[in-house]
């Protein structure tokens, strides 16, 4: 964020901006800055409050959020509905795993374990794949594009499960990339903390970097061009937005995000198999973007946390629904309810708050702004 211009801000007049720079700042009011700051402190401090197992899950949330932010750029901002996110996640995951993999293992590995090599490579390769897909987006609209990108997932799954030299094959899988930085493991239990604590901090850091970059993009001319294409593409062209170019940029950036997310995602569990990159995964990412509130970065992040934590929550709910059987052979049992809840919560959410988690936030905020004069 900009430092210049902020000093010129007059105290006590939060909405008065005396320079365009401060007006353009990401967090342009003291209230926003305070709350974001507080949230950050809390996020960084969590490892001292939560058990490792939860931290691991939160690390997954952070990575998923990177992927969701990426999808949010192409789908939420640029309006190009993509069901192909799983495909790009896969490209990133396999690029990273192959580069950092053990050269003598069961599957392809180049043995370059430095994250500085495999993470950018994963982003780059996935981004390139996005560029290749982009021409489709310039020809197709709406649901046609959605189903065609879905086709990518199916074709990708076929290729990945056949190409066992790279992927280990369906039902086998391979180890994920190694979290190493110039030979130093980035997450290993040691004096400074457990593996999961470090993992969480690391992923949180990545999330912050990626989210910040996305927020920058969104407020730049690129982000505006995305929105223009989404809302009215003909008019966008007439005022000077190169449609083909910006759709390509949208897919490239989004896929690069997906690639990085894919590369990091499985380092948490250390293992993945080609069946992971299914329709379901794509759908989960779309759900993250929609539930969070399409067209906002923070919404995508919130959605990612929600969807990733949801199975965990529904499992916890087993305890609160006493009349249900925990016997898998009885109907209805908790395991069925867990899955049903997953579906139902998505439905309920979208029906009652179509603007997503972000919409809820806006409502709450507006309520307090208007208080005590609500309505």
């Amino acid at each position, binding site marked *: 964020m900009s430092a210049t211009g902020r000093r010129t801000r007059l105290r006590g007049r939060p909405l008065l901006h005396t320079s365009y*720079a401060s007006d353009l700042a990401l967090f342009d009011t003291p209230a926003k800055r305070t709350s974001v700051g507080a949230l950050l402190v809390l996020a960084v401090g969590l490892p001292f409050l939560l058990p490792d197992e939860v931290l691991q899950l939160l690390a997954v949330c952070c990575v998923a959020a990177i992927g969701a932010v990426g999808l949010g750029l192409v789908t939420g901002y640029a309006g190009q509905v993509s069901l192909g996110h799983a495909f790009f996640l896969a490209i990133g995951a396999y690029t990273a795993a192959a580069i950092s993999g053990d050269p003598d293992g069961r599957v392809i590995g180049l043995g370059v374990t430095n994250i500085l090599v495999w993470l950018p490579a994963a982003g780059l390769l996935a981004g390139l794949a996005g560029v290749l897909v982009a021409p489709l987006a310039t020809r197709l609209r709406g649901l046609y594009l959605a189903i065609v990108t879905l086709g990518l997932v199916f074709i990708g799954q076929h290729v990945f499960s056949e190409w066992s030299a790279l992927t280990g094959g369906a039902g086998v899988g391979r180890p994920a990339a190694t979290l190493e930085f110039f030979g130093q493991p980035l997450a290993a239990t040691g004096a400074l903390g457990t593996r999961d604590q470090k993992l969480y901090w690391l992923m949180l850091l990545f999330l912050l970097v990626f989210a910040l970059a996305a927020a*920058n993009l969104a407020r730049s001319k690129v982000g505006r061009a995305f929105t*223009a294409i989404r809302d009215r593409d003909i008019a966008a*062209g007439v*005022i000077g937005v190169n449609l083909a170019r910006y759709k390509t940029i949208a897919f490239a950036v989004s896929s690069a995000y997906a690639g990085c997310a894919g590369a990091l995602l499985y380092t948490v569990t250390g293992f993945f198999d080609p069946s992971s990159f299914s329709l379901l995964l794509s759908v989960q990412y779309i759900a993250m973007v929609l539930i969070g509130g399409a067209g906002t970065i923070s919404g995508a992040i919130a959605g990612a946390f929600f969807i990733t934590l949801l199975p965990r929550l529904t499992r916890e709910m087993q305890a609160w629904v006493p009349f249900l059987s925990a016997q898998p052979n009885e109907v209805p049992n908790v395991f069925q309810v867990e899955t049903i809840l997953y579906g139902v919560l998505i439905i309920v959410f979208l029906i009652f708050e179509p603007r997503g988690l972000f919409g809820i936030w806006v409502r709450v905020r507006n309520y307090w702004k208007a208080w005590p004069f609500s309505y």
Partner: protein
Amino acid sequence: MTLTEPDPGTGTAPDRRTDPVDTDPDRQGDPVGADPILRFEDVRLHFAGVRAIDGVSFTVGRHELFAIIGPNGSGKTSIFNVLSGVYRPQTGRVVFDGADLVGRRPHVIAALGMARTFQNVELFANLTVLDNLLLGRHHHLGYGTLAALGWLGRARRAEIANRAAVEEIVDFLELERWRRMPVGLLPYGVQKRVELGRALAMEPKLLLLDEPVAGMNLEETEDMARFILDIRDELDIPIVLVEHDMGLVMDLADRVLVVDFGQVVATGNPAEIPHHPDVVRAYLGEVRPR
């Protein structure tokens, strides 16, 4: 009044004020001049079975306010669509400031300096007035995607400079009150004005206005008339105006082109056009201009 700030994004924004305004040829005498901004030459545009434009030719001078009128479906909007690259005509030439436009894509034409408004408001309804105007300046921002991701010096400076440029337009069109409102929530008349602002933000060499006062009440129409005159007189941007409000056309235009069934019916100055028998028959009917 200056609309152009030195553009930090490109540094090479074409400056149309190199054209000295003082050497303006007498408007009544030769409105087109030796070097017209636009030549539309024998353009034909057919859709399966419909001849939207059927051999239309005209030229627009560098300081002209040129109006096109004609019955509904006579091809006025289609002419605009050809000009801005939305439609590609089957035959004919369109020369704009020395460049042939046929076959160029809309964003390329926009970068050449052609700006337009639309018959049905085509604003980005979810964006604020400021964002809509900033979008008009899209091709004046020269930084790339990577710079945008980092919001590094270049991108930041370019954005700040463009904000300043946009504020000029806000002032000019008296949009202060609505700057931060999503345009979808604004009254129709204001939306039309924002759309005009977006076109102005492009710093065009030629402005195309498609029915700028349709659906407006008298008051809003008067405001719009004022802005159109100011653009022409103060900013010295030539304008092509399509409008059904005869009062407005006759009061403002330097020359009027009348089309019907995609063909030219008549060209002339506002004083003579309303009395042209073909125009009366095809277009005006028995009503007198209001």
